[in-house]
Every structure is written in structure tokens, then in C-alpha cells.
């Protein structure tokens, strides 16, 4: 017996549990509405270059979607996986002829990849419908913006995975996940900006740009008109470096999660 069938069954089982009616349907509706509404608003503002306009259009129209998708991932990983470990459902899954790594992959595909694909599909399709010329003319900017937007989501997902596996309690992991996301994207952001404004130095922004590479991309396109008021105007290679470092961090967190799941998880 091959491992394809058991993997697909565990994956579809996770899909059934994670995306029960009407959660997924509601997510699709909200993503579609947000894209249409915010893309219209973002298009009002003018920018010096078409790349800057494209980046702003994408960033402005996707941030609420990112939050929605983030909530879905938070629910699926922190609460869902945490509960599976807490209640012993993972033990049941371990009794199937699949390696532990495949079981985690099936769970993550359902919890993480499906909402992300949904987000990308709706967002790209919506923007392409309204602004086909801009989207088709700037594939590099479109790719970089989406990549930069998704990096912090993936990082948060990886950290939530570690939290869920370590705490082994759904509700506790959910609360800890909320606190972590708030710290990562609100507190750290404020601290990095305050340090930059206070000292006039750009190192805090550079560090924070590894966590949220879209900051580097934004400052690159806006130049001296950026949110840091010219404290940090990164070069294109710096933007790529931040993006690369961001994804490297994501990879490290997920590798630690997989190793912990396979070897360190006490169930």
C-alpha cells in the first residue's frame, strides 16, 4: 500500500475538521468583499512610479485579508492542533500507516496552505479583474509584494505551531498565539519605529524588516516619502536580503516545529 492514499485521507479529514461550514464560505465572502472595496479606495491615490502604485494597491487591498487569513490560521493551528494534541487525536492519527512528518504536513496543508491559497486566489483574481494592465505589467512587483506580505504570516504560523506543540492545550495556545501576534506586529513595530525616530539610526527598522519584509519594500518604493521619513531608504538588494532572511527565519521555525513534532512531542 502506497502512502499517497493514507496521506490524502488524513488531509481531507483535517480539512473537514478545520473548515467546517460556514467558516470557509465566510472567509471567501469577506476576502472577496475586502479586495473589491479596498482596491477601489487604494486606486484613488497617485504615486510617482507605477511600481510604487502597484505595491500600494496590493498592500492596501490585502492587509485586511491577511488579518482574516491570520485569524483562520490562528484558529486552525493554535486551537485546532493544540486541541488535537491535548485530547489525544494525534495519537489516533499516529496509529495509521504514515510517518509522523506526513501527518504534520497533512495537518498544516489544511490549516495553513488552504487559507493562504484562498487568499492568493481571490486577491490576485480580484485585482486582475479591476486592474489587468497594472498587474500584468509589473509581475516582479506583484510577486515581491505578495512574498513580503506572506512572510510574517508564515512566521506567525510557524511560531503558533511551536506554541501549540509545546503547550499542548488548545485554548492556552490560542491565547498565547494572540499575545505573540500582538507583540510581533504591534509592539515590535512601535518599538522599532520609536528607536529609529529617537536615535535617527536605521538598524531597528532593518531588524524589524526581517520579520515583516513588506516594510523594506514599502520604504524602497516610497523613498524619502516613506513612513520612516527617509531614515532608512533601502536599496533593492537590501529588500531582497530582508525577504530572504525573513523566509530563512520561517524555514528555521518550521524545521524546529517538525523536529519537535517527530522527536520531542510527549503524548
Amino acid at each position: 500500500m502506497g502512502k499517497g492514499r493514507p496521506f490524502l485521507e488524513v488531509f481531507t479529514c483535517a480539512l473537514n475538521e478545520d473548515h467546517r461550514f460556514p467558516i470557509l464560505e465566510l472567509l471567501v465572502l469577506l476576502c472577496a468583499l475586502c479586495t473589491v472595496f479596498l482596491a477601489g479606495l487604494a486606486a484613488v491615490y497617485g504615486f510617482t512610479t507605477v511600481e510604487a502604485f502597484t505595491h500600494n494597491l496590493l498592500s492596501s487591498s490585502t492587509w485586511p485579508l491577511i488579518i482574516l487569513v491570520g485569524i483562520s490560521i490562528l484558529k486552525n493551528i493554535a486551537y485546532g492542533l493544540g486541541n488535537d494534541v491535548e485530547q489525544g487525536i494525534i495519537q489516533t492519527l499516529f496509529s495509521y500507516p504514515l510517518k509522523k512528518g506526513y501527518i504534520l504536513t497533512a495537518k498544516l496543508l489544511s490549516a495553513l496552505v488552504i487559507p493562504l491559497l484562498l487568499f492568493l486566489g481571490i486577491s490576485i483574481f480580484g485585482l486582475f479583474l479591476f486592474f489587468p494592465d497594472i498587474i500584468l505589467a509589473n509581475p516582479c512587483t506583484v510577486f515581491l509584494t505578495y512574498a513580503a506580505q506572506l512572510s510574517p504570516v508564515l512566521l506567525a504560523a510557524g511560531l503558533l505551531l511551536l506554541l501549540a506543540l509545546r503547550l499542548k492545550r488548545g485554548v492556552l495556545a490560542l491565547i498565547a498565539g494572540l499575545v505573540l501576534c500582538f507583540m510581533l506586529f504591534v509592539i515590535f513595530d512601535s518599538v522599532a519605529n520609536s528607536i529609529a525616530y529617537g536615535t535617527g539610526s536605521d538598524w531597528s527598522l532593518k531588524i524589524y524588516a526581517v520579520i515583516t519584509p513588506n516594510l523594506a519594500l514599502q520604504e524602497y518604493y516610497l523613498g524619502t516619502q516613506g513612513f520612516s521619513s527617509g531614515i532608512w531608504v533601502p536599496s533593492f538588494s537590501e529588500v531582497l536580503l530582508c525577504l530572504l532572511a525573513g523566509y530563512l527565519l520561517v524555514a528555521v521555525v518550521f524545521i524546529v516545529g517538525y523536529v519537535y513534532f517527530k522527536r520531542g512531542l510527549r503524548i
Partner: protein
Amino acid sequence: MSLILVDDIAKSYGKVVAVDGLSLRVEEGSIMGLIGPNDVGKTTTIKIIVGLLKPDRGFVRVFNEEPWDNPALKSKIGIIHERARFPSHHKVLDYLQRVCRIFGKPESRAREVLALTKLEYAYDRTIKTLSAVMLQKFAIAHAWINQPVLIIADEPTSNLDPAARNDLLDLILKLHQDENVTFLISSDIVPELDRVCDTVAIINQGKIWASGGLTELSERLGARTTRISADNPEALGELIRKLEYVSRVEVDSRGVSVGVIGEEDGKLYEDVPKLAKKAKARIVGIQSGTASLEELFRLAVKSGQGG
């Protein structure tokens, strides 16, 4: 042939030692009971055997294979976890049909195992609505889906009422006799295991304290049960209870059953007539036999407490 071979395994959780130097062997075609008080390492041992935990040291083989993260092995064994849980929003039949597909079995097998565990009436119920008893039956059906040669069960009767426990034990005997399924069953409800197990391993303080067939163990440990048929058994029982070397006294309307450990069996034969005279009880007969599993269990607990 040994289906399970465990040699000198150890497992600690931080400073807490769960299993230390445990060795075990389960032969093909046997029903082995892994018995012991709570928190002595039964569940940890089972988890190591089914590959959920990796021992800190030692050697484990199931079907001559290393169980840790070994998917191929899962097709050969059925596992009933203690307080087993399943994805709760699925329907009973749907989920078992999914498990059939996972193990490459026809979906009709799901109905068969549900019938076997008397859960046919719950086909359309979602798993989260099942009672504790039904959930335990469902866990048994789930473990039997892939028609394993070996079933490893951790406290399988823990959530069951007496009638359901009886049904489960009947089912175990049926599978053992009809399908030659080998069982390793851990439990602290000893009288039930007495009914089905042909070999036992008594675990205490993370080690196997004694193992073997029931008769063999009784003889080796010198544990015997003596049945004294007498009138006025209550008064006689009260006096026997005061004897130091007696481990258990059970009184019924026809006499007294006495558990004796060690070499004191002969002494009991000397003491009983004197006590009967004192209790004004007339002895009809005395007969000694193999100790019950419960007797051996008490002995293990006593030894663990330094008694």
C-alpha cells in the same frame, strides 16, 4: 515466536522515572495482561511498544521491527489507546470508512466492525455525541478495521460498564479463538484480565516484577488461595483476618477464601482448626489452589510498598 520483544528499556520524564530496566516478551497466539497499580509505567510501556515514545535506552522489536515512527508496522497491529479520541465532527460510519481506505480495506468492513462491537445503531451519529461507553466500543472497532494479527490495548475497559466490559472480554476471547489474534492488554482491573489472559506480566515501579503463566507464577511466588468450607463463616473469617501471613480474606455464606503468600500455606492448615474451635464453626473441608491474578497483583503492590 515472539511478536513483541522488549529488553531493558528505560524512559524518564525529566526527573520522573516512568520505566526503568523493563523487559517483556509476548508470544504469538497469547493474551498477555500487563497489570500493575496506577502510575507504575504501564501506559509508557505501551506507548514505547506502539512507537509513540522513544525509550531513553533499551531494545524494542514488534514483528522483529523497530516500532518508532514505522508506518509499515501500523498495518499489522491494532491499537486501543487509553481514553482514545477521534476527529469529533465526523459521523461514526463515515470515519470508519475513511479508516478502511487508509488501510486499503473495502469500505464494507466498517459496517462489519460496527456490528461486531454492537454499534450498528450509531452509524449516523457524529463522534462527539457518543457516550464514553460508545466511544470505547468505537475505539475497539477502529482498532479491528485492519484485521491486525496483534492488538495492543491500554486500559480498554476503563470507560465501560460491567455489561460492556463482559462484552469486550467475550469479543477478545472470540477474536483470539476464531482469528488467532494476539493481545497485549494493560489494565488495573485485575479480575477481568484473570478471565481472558493466559500469561501476565506484573509491572511495578517501572519494572516487570514477575511474568509468566498464572499457575507458573503462583507456584514461583508461593501465592495460594485456600478455600475453607465451614458453617459460621463470618466469625471464622474475622479470626483468620488477624493472622499476619494472610493477604486476603473473603467471606461468603458457605465459607471463607483465604489468600496466603509464601511458605505459610501449611501453617494455615495448623491454625484453622484452632480458630474454628474458637469461632464455634464446624469445618466441612479445606482445599488449596492456584492464587488468583488479584492475589498476585496484591503481592506486587505490597512488594512495591516495601511490604
